[in-house]
């Protein structure tokens, strides 16, 4: 099944990249606040039970995809 893992910096973690993009948007006259940049990972995981596939994706997050010191993930089974 296709799975989408979205990895975001935790709320308290400084995101200089997001800040720079926010300033860039302001430079164009757009109003936007709290811009945060994350990472989107798409993968195919064998299985047909969404709950089981989600659990496998969670295990991948715990092992490698996410650094719990600075990031959190949300998993979406498509």
């Amino acid at each position: 099944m296709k799975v989408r893992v979205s990895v975001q910096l935790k709320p308290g973690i400084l995101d200089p990249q997001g800040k720079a993009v926010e300033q860039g948007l302001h430079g164009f006259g757009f109003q936007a606040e709290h811009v945060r940049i994350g990472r989107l990972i798409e993968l195919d995981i064998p299985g047909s039970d969404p709950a089981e596939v989600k659990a496998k994706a969670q295990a991948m997050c715990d092992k490698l995809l996410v650094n719990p010191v600075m990031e959190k993930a949300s998993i979406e089974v498509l």
Partner: protein
Amino acid sequence: MRVAVPVFPGSNCDHDALHACGTVFGWDTIPVWHQEPRLPEGTDLVFIPGGFSYGDYLRCGAIAALAPIMTDVKRHADQGGLVLGVCNGFQILCEAQLLPGALLRNATLRFIHQDVHLRVERTDLPFTASMKAGEVFRVPIAHAEGNFTLEPADLADLEARGGVAFRYCSPAGEIGEAHVPNGAMNGIAGIVNVRGNVLGMMPHPERAVDPRLGPTGGLGIFRSLESVLAKG
């Protein structure tokens, strides 16, 4: 004294480490390809060098932390063997969970290369045994992700157990935000594990040991290692 220098695809300070340990100090220094399952027999110190292992894919050091050689580096550390990780080596040690915390993008967003001053916070470590408490030494940094970060409670734990080995400071040894080049919490430049045998630091002491190449502020760390390992 035997030093192993793990080399990953994208390591680029491995030769600095080999030069400092092998040429300047004359130690038996062996580069070890990341695919090797074992460190050389009798390794006293593992020096994980700087660079851009695996192109910094996913997160700095994340993929290198899974390399075959790292299993044996962990065994070495578990048995009390010494491990020094510099720059990307520090990032790898954090990703391998040999050290707490993570290194985020510099607060300035820029790659920074400059000399910095560091204050010695611990002198009871094998890495600092020949240094004086509060001693200030000058070494270069060269990184884009050196902004040391930890959850507030974990940071408090780290400080309470004296896990900070080096802090960025002024040339006179004053601590403060103005002297922190990369936004690192509490001005932390280098930390050790609980046992004190694994040190990670962003600055490059190995680039400041050869008088033919410039200042030699990094000598203290190598002299400390020499004094400790020569004893035994």
